[in-house]
């Protein structure tokens, strides 16, 4: 079978399951007695195992299988969760993750998992010795007929068949332990049965059985006209069948069986219901999950689907295509608006106005489609912080708020690494070691808040710790010794400027370099990445109390509001997000200060840059004008003025790149297509402020 078409689905779903495993394991770690969580974990692991086996990733399947064994003991309360079990399970998850990663990158997902498998097995065995007695107790009293969950429809079919005088059988088939082709044997059983009746429901599912996804035992409901004994003989005539268990059902026993499956916990005294029941062989070693327990996940799985998140998976490329098509529409809209305003045709104007309204609604929706909750990045952090805390021997609580805040997919893709850096930084440099915290009168456990929230056209992500905070003197001393600033420069710097030194290349405040962070290459990379995304980082810190890294990001990168300007015959767009103000300056208002041209703006002098000089614009020069328009732009806290020819107006523009051929151009961040079909370049304000 060609598995390729299923591969992406497999990868997506595996990642989902791994994520939920990780999350639930963390929850379980804080509530080790909550069997409900174990059930969820077990189900995820079970599904993962099934998928991996179907796709032929055997290492993946065998590792999940071992995890399942451990979890099975836990949820049957034969094993208490303990630290070393958590560690082993987390290690297994890491191994699974790297295997899935390998598959994603086109590998075969093979990996040597024998060490982890061995330690999982030893957990299972260790349990055997200590609670073997209890386990034996549990198995002994009347080996239960394992009930299969039936839905209403299947139940009524069975009811009706009984009323009409058909035989309704519950059949449980156990294959021999040395059976090589389980799926084939099961298939032969089905075929034999279907010759003389109808199979209503099987456990596990037919697909799972046909792929060999079961553990020697499967069971089914069966409607036939024949006698039970006859059917039994038919099944037994197939080789490699160890035992069959058959129960003839009437209304009452059917009812009871279904109830039993719903309750799951207590084993009903089923002896009086059975006619041909033979005890199921219970020779399974503890390493293999007992089949009677295997049936349990079926119940929550089928009912657990009651919470469908009404979503579909869409290929990202299709969204990009949609976005591109929409941008073209947007260009035509602007063009139509222009034509309508020139033509003075009322009907045309009305129609175009309506179209504009509809298309801005459409624009909102298309943009929303590209929005992804930051949770997709945040969700791996709890695990990361847990591991960090263990390595650093600190106690850290990570509190996440606003994980549902949405950001453009392109931003989400890029923001992960910078956030990892900042979190590591907080855990390593921010939160103090235990002794130091106690000495400072703080609670032993440090807290790191990870917050995301909207504000205007921006999303803020804050990482705040209650650690030692930033000491100005320490940073300055360090920066001066590293030659980042001179002593004189340092003395005149504001606190904010000093904090920003953390982002200077080649700067590290940690006295000793640790594995976790602090080679001094981290934070400057963080800053440049965030700036490249059109964002900014600010640091607020109170010495002794803690530090807050506040990352500001634009909501979206593909459509922005911009100011269109004219430079002679050329048109340019300046993103509104970088514009502070527009204005006019007189020629004599421009002053020469220390060789650079400055202009007065709100109590302070800011540099003024001639856009026409910068871009060698052929047919405009502000020198010829007595008064010239300026746009005041900003980069962080710093401002500069650009001299321009004239303003055209404000417009929503679609950002396009300039293609792969051209190298990066200083001062230009991209291009957009105007209403008249012409290309206008987008000015990168950051390039004008050093």
């Amino acid at each position, binding site marked *: 079978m060609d598995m390729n078409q299923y591969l992406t689905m497999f990868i997506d779903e595996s990642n989902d399951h791994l994520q939920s495993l990780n999350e639930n394991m963390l929850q379980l770690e804080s509530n080790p007695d909550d069997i409900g969580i174990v059930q969820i974990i077990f189900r995820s692991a079970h599904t993962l195992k099934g998928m991996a086996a179907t796709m032929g990733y055997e290492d993946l399947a065998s590792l999940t299988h071992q995890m399942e064994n451990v979890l099975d003991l836990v949820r049957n309360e034969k094993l208490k969760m303990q630290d070393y079990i958590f560690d082993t399970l987390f290690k297994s998850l890491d191994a699974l993750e790297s295997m899935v990663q390998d598959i994603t990158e086109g590998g075969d997902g093979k990996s040597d998992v024998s060490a982890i498998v061995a330690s999982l097995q030893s957990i299972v065995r260790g349990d055997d010795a200590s609670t073997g007695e209890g386990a034996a107790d549990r198995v002994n009293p009347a080996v239960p007929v394992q009930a299969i969950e039936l839905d209403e429809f299947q139940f009524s079919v069975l009811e009706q068949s009984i009323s009409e005088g058909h035989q309704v059988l519950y059949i449980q088939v156990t294959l021999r332990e040395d059976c090589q082709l389980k799926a084939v044997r099961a298939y032969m059983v089905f075929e034999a049965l279907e010759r003389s009746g109808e199979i209503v429901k099987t456990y596990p599912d037919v697909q799972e059985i046909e792929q060999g996804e079961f553990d020697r035992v499967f069971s089914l409901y069966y409607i036939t006209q024949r006698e039970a004994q006859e059917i039994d003989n038919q099944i037994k005539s197939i080789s490699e069948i160890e035992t069959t268990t058959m129960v003839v059902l009437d209304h009452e026993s059917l009812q009871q069986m279904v109830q039993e499956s719903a309750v799951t916990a207590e084993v009903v005294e089923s002896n009086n219901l059975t006619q041909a029941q033979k005890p199921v062989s219970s020779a399974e070693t503890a390493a293999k999950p007992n089949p009677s327990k295997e049936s349990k996940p079926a119940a929550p799985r089928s009912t657990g689907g009651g919470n469908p998140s009404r979503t579909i998976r869409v290929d990202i490329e299709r969204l990009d295509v949609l976005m591109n098509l929409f941008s073209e529409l947007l*260009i035509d809209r602007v063009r139509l608006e222009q034509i309508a305003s020139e033509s003075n045709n009322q009907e045309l104007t009305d129609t175009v106005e309506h179209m504009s309204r509809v298309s801005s609604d459409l624009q909102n929706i298309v943009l929303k489609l590209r929005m992804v909750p930051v949770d997709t990045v945040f969700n791996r952090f709890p695990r990361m912080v847990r591991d960090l805390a263990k390595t650093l021997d600190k106690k850290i609580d990570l509190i996440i708020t606003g994980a549902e805040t949405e950001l453009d997919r392109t931003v989400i893709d890029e923001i992960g690494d910078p956030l990892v850096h900042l979190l590591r930084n907080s855990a390593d440099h921010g939160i103090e070691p235990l002794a130091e915290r106690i000495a400072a009168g703080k609670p032993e456990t440090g807290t790191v808040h990870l917050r995301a929230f909207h504000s205007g056209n921006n999303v803020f992500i804050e990482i705040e710790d209650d650690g030692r905070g930033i000491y100005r003197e320490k940073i300055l001393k360090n920066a001066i010794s590293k030659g980042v600033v001179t002593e004189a420069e340092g003395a005149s710097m504001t606190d904010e400027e000093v904090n920003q030194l953390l982002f200077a290349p080649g700067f590290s405040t940690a006295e000793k370099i640790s594995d976790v962070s602090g080679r001094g290459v981290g934070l400057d990379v963080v800053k440049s990445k965030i700036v490249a995304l059109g964002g900014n980082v600010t640091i607020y810190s109170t010495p002794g109390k803690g530090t807050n890294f506040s990352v500001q990001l634009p909501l979206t990168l593909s459509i922005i509001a911009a100011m269109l300007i004219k430079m002679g015959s050329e048109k340019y767009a300046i993103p509104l997000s970088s514009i502070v103000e527009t204005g006019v300056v007189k020629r004599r208002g421009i002053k020469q200060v220390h060789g650079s041209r400055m202009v007065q703006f709100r109590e302070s002098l800011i540099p003024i840059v001639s856009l026409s000089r910068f871009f060698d614009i052929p047919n405009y020069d502000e020198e010829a004008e007595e008064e010239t328009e300026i746009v005041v732009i900003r980069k962080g806290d710093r401002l500069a003025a650009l001299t321009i020819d004239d303003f055209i107006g404000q417009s929503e523009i679609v950002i396009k790149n300039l293609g792969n051929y051209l190298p990066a151009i200083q*001062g230009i961040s991209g291009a957009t297509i105007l209403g008249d079909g012409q290309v206008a370049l987008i000015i990168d304000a950051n390039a004008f402020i050093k």
Partner: protein
Amino acid sequence: MGEEIKVIVFKLGEQEYGIEVDKVQTIERMMPITRVPKTYAFVKGVINLRGVVIPVINLRGRFGLEEIDATDQTRIIIVAVNDMQVGFIVDSASDVIDLNTDHIESPPEVVGGIKAKYLRGIAKVGEERLLVMLNLSEVLNKSEIIQLEGIEE
């Protein structure tokens, strides 16, 4: 026995050049070009080709030939090579011909002032026509451009 290929023929001055058809996306008439500052001199700017912004280079400029003003014969040939879309401004583009690769001979050192490395070879068409086959990946090679610029400075 070589294979038959289709070749788009265009002109710079009197010389005819050829590009394989499968590298060419479309051929457009001259259209408004937005100048891009601070880049190579032979980059004329960018155009809007049905919603995609594509850089356009003047092939005369690229080969160090004298640049001339656009006429109504001037065409922009949009080629796609190595994930790059680029438009070439040429004097005219009129013909598509069939060519056997056997008829392409390796080029002499310099042809009409163009360095041999930009050329794939010279194809003889009929009795008199000589077609210069371009090596597009070399023409669009960026490290080459940077070297050239370096020498000029």
